[in-house]
């Protein structure tokens, strides 16, 4: 009893280092697939048109807006989300710094900021304030005014 005239697509991908397969409508975004099919609700929807960064994930080593990626495009790729940042040994230094520097208030944009900031520090170990602000410009925050977020990323870069 569904309006769908198209068949679901089989996607085989790796999420947070773990191989996964799922069926998904071809028109479903990677964001919706992560939240509704795979059940990882850490990645958030803020605008669904690539303008706020709350849905940022790491796709094959590049940070992207998962709302503007079609789920079938994840075939054979590596997707890393907020749920993959901490390890059994504990929080990622960025997560720890966000806590200690009070770099979040409501927290809805925090997953996007953390995955984006990790994308920066993974290939630029010691970025200056301007570089951090430029890299994070694709992530909107309405509560903090970005100040403590920038300081937290600087602190994590030194950790």
């Amino acid at each position, binding site marked *: 009893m569904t309006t769908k005239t198209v068949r679901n697509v089989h996607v085989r991908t790796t999420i947070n280092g773990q191989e996964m397969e799922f069926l998904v409508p071809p028109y479903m975004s990677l964001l919706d697939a992560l939240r509704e099919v795979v059940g*990882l*609700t850490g990645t958030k929807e803020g605008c669904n048109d690539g303008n706020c960064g709350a849905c940022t994930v790491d796709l094959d080593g590049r940070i992207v807006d998962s709302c503007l990626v079609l789920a079938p495009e994840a075939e054979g790729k590596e997707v890393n989300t907020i749920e993959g940042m901490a390890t059994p040994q504990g929080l990622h230094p960025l997560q720890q710094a966000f806590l200690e520097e009070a770099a979040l208030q409501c927290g809805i944009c925090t997953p996007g900021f953390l995955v984006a900031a990790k994308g920066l520090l993974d290939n630029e170990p010691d970025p200056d304030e301007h570089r951090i602000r430029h890299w994070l410009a694709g992530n909107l925050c309405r509560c903090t005014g970005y100040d403590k977020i920038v300081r937290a990323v600087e602190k994590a870069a030194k950790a």
Partner: protein
Amino acid sequence: MVAIYEPTQDLKVVGTRPIRHDGYDKVTGRALYGADVKVPGLIWGEVLRSPHAHARIKSIDTSAADAMPGVFATMTHADLPMAEDKDVDVGEGMVNVRRHAVNVMADDKALYKGHVVAAVAAIDRNTAQEAARRIEVEYEPLPVVNNVDEAMAEDAPLLHPDMHGNHLGQQIGGTNVAGQFRHQLGDPEQGFAESDLIVDRTFTLPMVHQGYIELHNATAFWDEEDRITIWSSTQGAFGVRSQTAGILKIDESNIKVNPVEIGGGFGGKTVVYLPPVAAVLSKKAHRPVKMVMDRTSVFEGSGPAPGGKIRVKIGVSNDGKIKAAEADIRFEAGAFPGSAVSAGALCVLACYDIPHVRIDGRDVLVNKPKSAAYRAPGSPQVAFASEQVVDEICDRMGWDKLQFRLENASKQGTRRADGPTFARVGLVETLEAARASDHWNTPLEKSGDGKLRGRGIASGYWMNGGGKSTCDLSVSDDGIVFMNEGSADIGGTRASIAMQAAEVLGIGAHDVRPSIPDTDSIGFTGVTGGSRTTYATGYAAYQAATELIEKLKSRAAALWGIDPEEVDFSDGVFSSKSDPELKLGFKDLARRLDGTGGPVTSTASVDLAEAGNSFAVHICDLEVDPNTGKTDVIRYTALQDVGKAVHPAYVEGQMQGGAVQGIGWTLNEEYFMTEEGVMANSSFLDYRMPTSLDLPMIDTIMVEVPNPLHPFGVRGVAEVPLAPPLGAVANAVTDATGTRFTDAPINPGKIVAGLAHENGA
């Protein structure tokens, strides 16, 4: 000092039959039980259990499992810290934390078939099961100890060579008897000398299981802050918290147990098996881990009621008085000390006022799963023995079996064998009710088709528990009262507790909205067991409601501009003592609280040292087919002193449920063990619990002798109904066949053999 209450009669809510508050969710399938929990990132855990009943564990190799795709983590006892060697109260007796940890996962020895040896967490349930199979364990099998006799034999292999048993106060090493004690009153030898008839019989019972339909389950998540969140169907969320904290050696407040519905426990879900394992797997895998036992594991790996051997010797004088009695009780503790022998010792002769009594009890280790509480733990086993000896005495003396029990019945002031004297109890009233009952006064016709019919009667006792409970209340603008209480609700206690608050507040049962929050959101509340929930948590609700009324009185006073002392409250109406004009119903006042101050809230907690004992008398008619030995119960009446039935329908439910479990225990249920200590019938097919077809309607007669310790006279009702059935059914079989069967279960095979023996075959 303990408050004494004069029971009031004109109760408006207590005694009615409202629909339970969680009813709609339960009948529509929406209620969430432990196995229904879904959490983002969830993976599955599974355990590997020992195939041997007794073996040294030489090595465990998890490498094959670790290498398997989809496996996140494996675990052995090495992953558990060395727990403290201290005892913790699990609500129905004490448990040693260090031994408890070894029961959760074996360290150097497997002590029963099914003992957990290792565990694995994987992406889904099937992968976890496959991975568990790949864990290689090197065992050195040891000789098996199957029962109390084998355990106490001279050359018996020792389960715990390092253990010292407390035998009558002395520490004895090199034994499987973990504990031996004695209660004595007066001089039994002299009593027996004054006896005209002495009957001395020995009875044996097998291990049986509580048989709850919901499988043990637990989901745990160990986060980066070293905080653990647990979802598990349990009789006591705070119990899960304290036992898991003890086993993992972390602070209790770092564990939060979330409430989920529980699918039956009967004492078997007061002890944790899975939560500590799921928690450690979660820590190693950094994922939430869910574990659900399969039915075989529930039989072989969770706590059954102890089997054992009971000798009872009773002497009576010709005038129908019991002069002296002796009992020697030996229970199978299972692989670790701590069976229900001490409770059994309190109950074995509790129904009788006997001047001279000696009771010996032994807690004996055997290579079987560690026993746990099963509904009035110990009392059914001892009643199977003592009620048959009493039955035999009456048969041989030709005395009326009710009259004899009446004349020897315990009542207020009777001293129990282990010391305390009974406060106000209702055994006499219950026996009188039995004598006046339609069942007792309807003669048993002969069956037309050659079947043998018989009727049996037996009594039973349970002391009930008090303990700690907390209840918070807050009033909403339209007069509805929201209640938070900490007791898991198995049989409708949300309703029975809400009703007691509603009674005090003068509002309807459905004007109180009970909810059961997690362990972070309510004060400590003990286990839902010991028949204590309606009694103790109800008492806390009564106090919280009383405090709420006091606060509302001061608000009414503020509203009317009079002195709080001036405000009176009765039948749900606030009124001014001086000005008759000023009158407000509870709901009307609630709607006008705005401006009189913040929201009206109250909180109360209790720790009740005593509860108020309860007695039961059951009458059983049954039919035995001599050719096949098959027994069918054709009429059954359960009578019980309930003090005050808060919700009569749910009290009847407890009486009927207990009776049926007792019938099953007597006729068919047993752990059928092989020589190697392996349970052969660990499935619902061969572990025969009664089906609807095996039973008639269970008639119930509630006797209300108010318990002075409780504002509404409530006594615990849930456990005592399991005590009488073993005796009642056994006596009925004897009445039908003329043969007394002293070894439970009295299954068809034993009846046919017994009849053949009887007829000299």
